[in-house]
């Protein structure tokens, strides 16, 4: 997890989002243990109540579960649940804006597909370096 926090969300929410991203990226797999509240609090120098808030949120959202005497674990089916939620969020919140831009620019499906295939990983990393 990154140690830097942004100003747009409270820290507990950013911890929650980072755990979610780790599950989606496969860094944390279903059945994997989450680091303890103590470890996260010490390593990232945040208040343990903040970490507890983040973990409680993840439990409430059914992405992680506590196992008696063992710790907190990524729940079976968490990735699918997350993907479903993230897809819905994308289609409801981001897609309308993107779709409007595509329409405004008159882009055709084949142009979009060609455009995305042009973005090879090597080129992307080069671009990022240049942008820096």
């Amino acid at each position, binding site marked *: 997890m990154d140690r*830097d*926090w942004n100003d747009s*969300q*409270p*820290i*507990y*929410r950013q911890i929650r989002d980072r755990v979610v991203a780790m599950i989606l990226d496969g860094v944390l797999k279903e059945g994997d243990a989450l680091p*303890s*509240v*103590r*470890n996260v*609090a*010490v390593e990232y*120098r*945040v*208040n*343990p*109540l*903040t*970490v*507890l*808030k983040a*973990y*409680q*949120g993840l439990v*409430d959202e059914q992405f992680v579960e*506590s*196992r*008696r*005497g*063992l*710790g*907190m674990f990524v729940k079976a089916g968490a990735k699918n649940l997350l993907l479903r939620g993230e897809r819905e969020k994308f289609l409801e919140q981001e897609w309308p804006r993107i779709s409007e831009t595509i329409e405004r620019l008159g882009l055709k499906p084949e142009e979009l597909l060609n455009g995305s295939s042009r973005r090879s990983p090597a080129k992307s990393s080069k671009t990022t370096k240049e942008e820096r």
Partner: protein
Amino acid sequence: MKSLRFALPFVLLALSTAALAQSDAQKSFDAMKALAGTWQGHATLDPPNPQMGGDSDTRVSMRVTSRGNAIVHEMGELDPAQDPTKHDHPVTMLYLDEGRLLLTHYCDAGNRPRMAGKLSADGKTIDFDFLDVAGNTQYGHMQHARFTIVDDNHHVEEWTFLMPGDKLMRGRIDLQRIK
């Protein structure tokens, strides 16, 4: 004249009740001022969830400021190298206002809930009940606080946070004075 004579006891009763309430607020404020110092303790969920491994140390600093008119309560690392503008460092101000002990919590969730304190009959616990909140509450807000004074060197803080979806989460910190 007759009606004035009839109303006088009620006026006196109302005034004495107000004075009593004010003295309770003052008593609570004085009790909170006695907590000035640096504290360290374990933070846990209440009820505890040992699976989270939440028995983690945290620090609280309390100091009396503004010529005795306010108390600053700061939670988190007290390392001067850690910039509170970027790190987790919630601040709470306590002050008297019209015969009440009020608390304003400056949350990193971007809001400022106000709570009013009520002293328990034994004078050891001050419960702060939610009054109102200013700012963005999209990510929840602090809803309740309780300070229990065990002795000069030990007190317990319980903070209840209202999560999005109206679910309450209570954290408890058992604090020992270190300064």
